[in-house]
Every structure is written in structure tokens, then in C-alpha cells.
């Protein structure tokens, strides 16, 4: 590969230097995702070869390219049909919501049906396919076409047996297309060991797309790959694509960079106590949350409470259920006091339930992408993500999840996955999804704690990037009023939950009560003593007071006597005429 061309095409000495001013012009296809992986579309004014086996979607791609060209980019088009009649084509695309007839009536599209009699023509002498060129020219002129799709040119090889002549004519056709600056799609059947059965790839040097419809383990997936795109950077992977009511969507699922913006906004988990554990504010918006745990540990409940909180804020949430039907989930949630019906009615919450085995991994990914694009949710919940495990090898599942997480992050969508872990103790529970765990921002682990003949649920936060979070194990309680997280009992005999916790709590309470009672009784005793002493004191005081009064009275009397004695003595003296 030459570094200057930066394509995956084999080295080509004539093409190694491309001056920047000769940069390839591209014609956007308007097909969801295709323009992203081709970084702008197909080479403008040049033919692109689309090859693949029967039923892989070549015709659809060729047709949608034209229709979107007309509807979205105002470029009229010609569809040259070698295989299907205009009626069939119109019917086929009508199922995708396109009105071919209308486009034809509006003078934007010509469907040129070219019937090739297979072997029914007598050949008497030299000929060429000038008639084909005249017809194409006529069709192109009649609408001023900028785009043309030829489906499938190789049919010619079935109708005429002069292969040398046909090759010459095909070569002439490609020249003809280029001379007219037509952006073209030419479809071709896949061959044995070659890109196309008739070696069309040797005529098209600019861009080759390969479509594939593969069935692995009875599950079919359509894939698209850019085999070659001269002069352009492009994605080199196989990209899954779907054909459904909205046409083709190709999923550029492995984003090329790691540059999603980290959001600082926090959103509630829907469980106040869990918010508290996560630094008091809940998850980061746009982060990825993994809730893993054994069967029946309450993963779905955590997911649903989150969904409820999301919708209560007026935001949108997609709930992808791979295990239970929506109605079952709703019923079960009602049993823990959560009614999600209003959110479904108001359109904020959408359930999408499917068995993992209905289609392959890629298809699931494709469907999820499509749903996300249509619904533009703030939050995506996948419950449980582990059900996808059966759909491929570990590395395939991991790579799918990586791509999905990447996509969600790049869109700023908060994602919550639940993951079923195998039972067993301690360590192994945490090892689940080893490949994915590094992508997870917040990881909650739900565990069964078996003790004393009963099972209880415990919850703790394995990690939560970028926030202070609790390191405590909490007991996770589900009741008819919802989820409650209780502090576990940590005492001399270890971590206790459930009834053991209740017992220990009761014992603690009893002990506390006894102490209190003792304290109370001592207090009372003291009070009584104080009262008694006070009473004594009062009595003594009263006695003293009484004595005091008496004493004072007697003292007064004495004083009176004293003074009277003095007076008497004076009077006596006066009477005796003493000197």
C-alpha cells in the first residue's frame, strides 16, 4: 500500500502519487451509513462496481442510490434494468416507501428495461451493441441524468455468445459513462474465486463495493465491504447493513477515533440511596453503566428504576429486552411499585423486545443503531447484554459491544447494560465481560449473599470513573414500594444481611434499650435522692426558722428586761437622792 494514496487497493505504480488538487470529487449516495464509510460517497462522474451473490441487495442499493440522488441531491437518474421489469421494480421499492412511478412522471427518473433474449436470437454476421448505447443516451438525455445504475450488465453475456465482442462493448460502455460524467453503479454477480463472474472488476478501477449475504449458524447477515476505492480513504471493515422499510442502512459501527466528548452532567439513577452512593448525584450523562449479577439479583429492577427516572425528567429511553417480553417486565415492575405505563403512553419509553437468536449479532447491532437513530433516546438500556453471548464467539460479541458502546458514547447517549453472571462466589462474579469491563464507566455488582439459611441481595460499586463513590456493600431490598438500599450489618461476626442483620439489629436494639433503662433508673434514683435531700433541707430550714423566730422573741424580751432594769435603777437613785 502506498502511504500517499491511503487506500486498501493493491499497489499500482501509475497511481501512487495523487496531487492534492486532483482530489476525488464524491457524490453522496444518501444511503444511511454508506457515505460515512466512503467518507463522502461514491466517486463522482465515475462508475462504481457493486458485486455480490444473488439476493444480497445489489439491485436495492443501485435503486436507492438513484432515488436518494433525486430526492436529496436533485440529480436525475436512469435505472437500466436487465433483470427485472419496471413493474416488478416499482413494486419492490414501493415496499420501501418509494414511489417510482411518481419520480418517472416528474421527469426525474427513467427505468430503462432491457430485455435480453437468452439464446433465442439468430446471429448472422457482425454486430455491435450500438442499440444499447443509443437507448442509454436517449434515456440519459430525456431527464438530464447525472446518475445511472446498471443492473446487471452481465445478463448481456447470457444473450450474446460473442464474448470478445461483449468485452469490447463493456469496455466501451465504461468509457461512455465516464465521458458523460455519469456517477454510475454497475452491479455484477459474484464469481467463483473472482469478484465478479465476468471479470467486470477489470473495467472498473475506481471503486468496488462487495455485498455479502452470509449465513452462519442459520442466521443471516448482510454485509458490505469497500474492496477498493482508489484515491480515497475509506473504512476497510465489513459493515453490516439492513434492508427494511426505510431502505438500506449501512452501519459504520467501528468508529475510527476515540474522541467522544465527556459530559459532566449527572443524572439520577432513580434510586435515591444509589445516587448517594455515587457521590450524591448519580451517573454521568453519556457514560456506560454495567449492572452485573447472578440470576434474580435485581438487575432488571435497577434498569427499570433508571428508565423511570429518565422518563420522569421528560427524556427518552429505549429499553431493549432480550429476555422478557415488555408486558412481563411491566407486570413485574408493578409488583415493586413501579408503573411504567404512563411513559410508554406518552412515548418517552420504548420497549423493543427480540430474541437474540432471531438474527445475527451484526443484525442486532444494525437494528439497535436504526432504533437509536429513529427514536433519538437519551438513554439506552440493554437487558441483558449477556444473552447475546450465544450469538457468536467471545471476541465477536465483545467487538460488537465495543462498537455499540463507541457509537452510544459518540452520540452522548447514556447506556445501561445488565449482565448475567454465573453463580458462584466472590471473584469469578467480577470477572465477567472481561473484554468489555474496560469500557464501562460505572459498574454495579449485585450479589447474592447466602448466610444462615437464606439468600439476600447485596450491592456494591466496583468502579465509577470520575466520581467519589461509596466503597460499602449495601443490602439491596425489593419491596412493594420499590428498591431500598440498607447498610449491611458489620459486626464482630462479619457482614450480615437479611434476617441475620435484623436479628443483630434487634440484639443491638435490645442492648441499647437495657442500657437506656439502666441509665434512666439511675437518673431516677438520683432524682429521688435529690428530692429527699431537698425535702430534708426544707424541713430543717423550717425548724431553724421556727427556732430562729423563738430565739429572736426571747432575745427581745431579754433586751426589754435589760432596759427596764436600768430605768428602775436610775429611779431608785433619784429617790434616794444619791449623788
Amino acid at each position, binding site marked *: 500500500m502506498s502511504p500517499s494514496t491511503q487506500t486498501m487497493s493493491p499497489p499500482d505504480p501509475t497511481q501512487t502519487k495523487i496531487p492534492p488538487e486532483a482530489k476525488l470529487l464524491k457524490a453522496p449516495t444518501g444511503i444511511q451509513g454508506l457515505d460515512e464509510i466512503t467518507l463522502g460517497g461514491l466517486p463522482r462522474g465515475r462508475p462504481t462496481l457493486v458485486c455480490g451473490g444473488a439476493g444480497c441487495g445489489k439491485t436495492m442499493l443501485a435503486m436507492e442510490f438513484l432515488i436518494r440522488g433525486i430526492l436529496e441531491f436533485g440529480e436525475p437518474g436512469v435505472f437500466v434494468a436487465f433483470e427485472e421489469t419496471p413493474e416488478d421494480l416499482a413494486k419492490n421499492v414501493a415496499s420501501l416507501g418509494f414511489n417510482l412511478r411518481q419520480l418517472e412522471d416528474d421527469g426525474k427518473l427513467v427505468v430503462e428495461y432491457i430485455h435480453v433474449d437468452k439464446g433465442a436470437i*439468430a446471429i*448472422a*454476421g457482425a454486430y*455491435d*451493441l*450500438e*442499440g444499447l448505447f443509443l437507448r442509454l443516451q*436517449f434515456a440519459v438525455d430525456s431527464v438530464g441524468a447525472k446518475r445511472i445504475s446498471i443492473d446487471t450488465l452481465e445478463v448481456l453475456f447470457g*444473450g450474446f455468445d460473442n464474448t470478445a465482442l461483449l468485452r469490447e462493448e463493456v469496455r466501451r460502455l465504461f468509457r461512455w459513462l465516464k465521458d458523460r460524467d455519469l456517477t454510475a453503479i454497475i452491479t455484477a454477480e459474484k464469481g467463483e474465486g473472482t469478484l465478479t463472474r465476468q471479470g467486470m472488476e477489470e473495467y472498473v478501477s475506481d471503486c468496488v463495493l462487495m455485498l455479502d449475504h452470509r449465513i452462519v449458524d442459520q442466521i443471516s447477515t448482510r454485509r458490505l465491504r469497500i474492496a477498493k476505492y482508489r484515491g480515497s480513504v475509506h473504512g476497510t471493515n465489513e459493515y453490516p447493513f439492513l434492508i427494511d422499510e426505510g431502505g438500506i442502512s449501512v452501519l459504520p459501527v467501528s468508529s475510527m477515533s476515540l474522541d467522544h466528548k465527556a459530559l459532566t452532567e449527572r443524572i439520577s439513577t432513580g434510586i435515591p440511596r444509589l445516587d448517594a452512593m455515587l457521590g450524591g448525584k448519580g451517573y454521568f450523562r453519556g457514560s456506560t453503566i454495567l449492572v452485573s449479577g447472578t440470576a434474580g439479583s435485581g438487575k432488571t429492577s435497577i434498569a427499570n428504576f433508571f428508565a423511570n427516572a429518565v422518563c420522569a425528567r421528560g427524556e427518552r429511553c429505549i429499553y431493549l429486552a432480550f429476555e422478557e417480553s415488555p408486558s412481563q417486565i411491566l407486570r413485574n415492575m408493578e409488583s415493586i411499585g413501579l408503573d411504567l405505563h404512563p411513559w410508554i403512553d406518552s412515548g418517552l419509553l420504548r420497549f423493543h423486545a427480540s430474541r437474540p437468536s432471531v438474527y445475527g449479532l451484526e443484525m442486532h447491532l444494525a437494528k439497535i443503531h436504526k432504533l437509536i437513530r429513529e427514536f433519538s433516546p437519551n438513554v439506552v438500556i440493554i437487558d441483558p447484554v449477556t444473552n447475546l453471548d450465544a450469538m457468536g464467539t467471545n471476541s465477536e460479541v465483545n467487538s460488537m459491544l465495543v462498537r455499540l458502546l463507541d457509537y452510544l458514547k459518540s452520540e452522548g447517549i447514556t447506556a445501561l447494560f445488565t449482565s448475567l453472571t454465573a453463580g458462584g462466589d466472590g471473584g469469578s462474579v467480577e470477572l465477567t465481560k472481561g473484554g468489555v469491563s474496560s469500557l464501562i464507566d460505572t459498574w454495579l455488582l449485585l450479589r447474592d449473599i447466602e448466610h444462615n439459611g437464606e439468600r439476600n441481595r447485596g450491592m456494591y460499586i466496583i468502579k465509577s470513573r470520575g466520581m467519589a463513590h461509596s466503597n460499602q456493600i449495601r443490602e439491596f431490598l425489593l419491596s412493594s414500594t420499590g428498591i431500598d438500599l440498607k447498610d449491611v450489618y458489620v459486626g464482630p461476626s462479619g457482614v450480615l444481611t437479611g434476617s441475620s442483620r435484623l436479628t443483630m439489629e434487634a440484639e443491638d436494639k435490645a442492648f441499647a434499650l437495657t442500657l437506656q433503662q439502666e441509665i434512666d433508673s439511675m437518673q431516677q434514683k438520683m432524682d429521688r435522692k435529690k428530692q429527699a435531700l431537698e425535702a430534708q433541707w426544707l424541713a430543717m430550714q423550717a425548724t431553724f426558722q421556727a427556732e430562729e423566730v423563738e430565739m429572736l422573741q426571747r432575745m427581745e424580751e431579754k433586751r426589754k428586761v435589760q432596759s427596764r432594769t436600768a430605768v428602775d435603777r436610775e429611779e431608785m437613785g433619784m429617790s434616794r437622792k444619791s449623788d
Partner: protein
Amino acid sequence: MTIDKYEPKPPGPVLEEETETFLLKLYVAGQTPKSLTAITNLRRICEEHLKGRYEIEVIDLIEEPALARTNQILAIPTLVRSLPTPISRIIGDLSDEDQVLMGLNITRVK
């Protein structure tokens, strides 16, 4: 469009099927060597084997490209036997006389 008409001559003592008149349309694209060869060859063969009971219509698709679509013409030149039915087609410059006669379903005149 050039139409060459040949008045059929009074029928001689011929077989029933040989009384039918052939309507032959030759589609060409301009005055290319192949087209001219085809016209010449066709006239010669008709004169030789269908004398007096044929009509040739030469259609130049450069002048009337829409007819290529209506009549599903791809190869140039294409000869279409419109009458008698069934319609049959022969492509090429008609230099292979055996193929032309076989294609038109005409018995060779010895």
C-alpha cells in the same frame, strides 16, 4: 426512416405458405459500414428468395432512438420479421445467408 417498397409481382404457381408477404424491419444506427452491409445483404437475399413478396423497412435509430426502446433493440443491425408471425429476430450484418434464411424461416430457392 427510409422505406424501400417493392410492389409484389403477380403470384406464380407457388406453395400456399409462399404466398405470404414478408414485412421485414431492419434497425440500423447511422450509415456505418455494418449497416450498409446489412442493407445490401438483406436486399440481395430478399430478391433471391422472396422475390415479389417482401417489404423492407430500414429504421435508423439515431434519428428515432425511442424506437430502440419500444422494440427492445440492443444489437445493431437487428432484423425483425414482423410478418408473417411469429416475430423473429436476426442480428448481424446478414453476411451469413444460411443463418438469415433459417432465422426468417424461408426455404432456399435452388
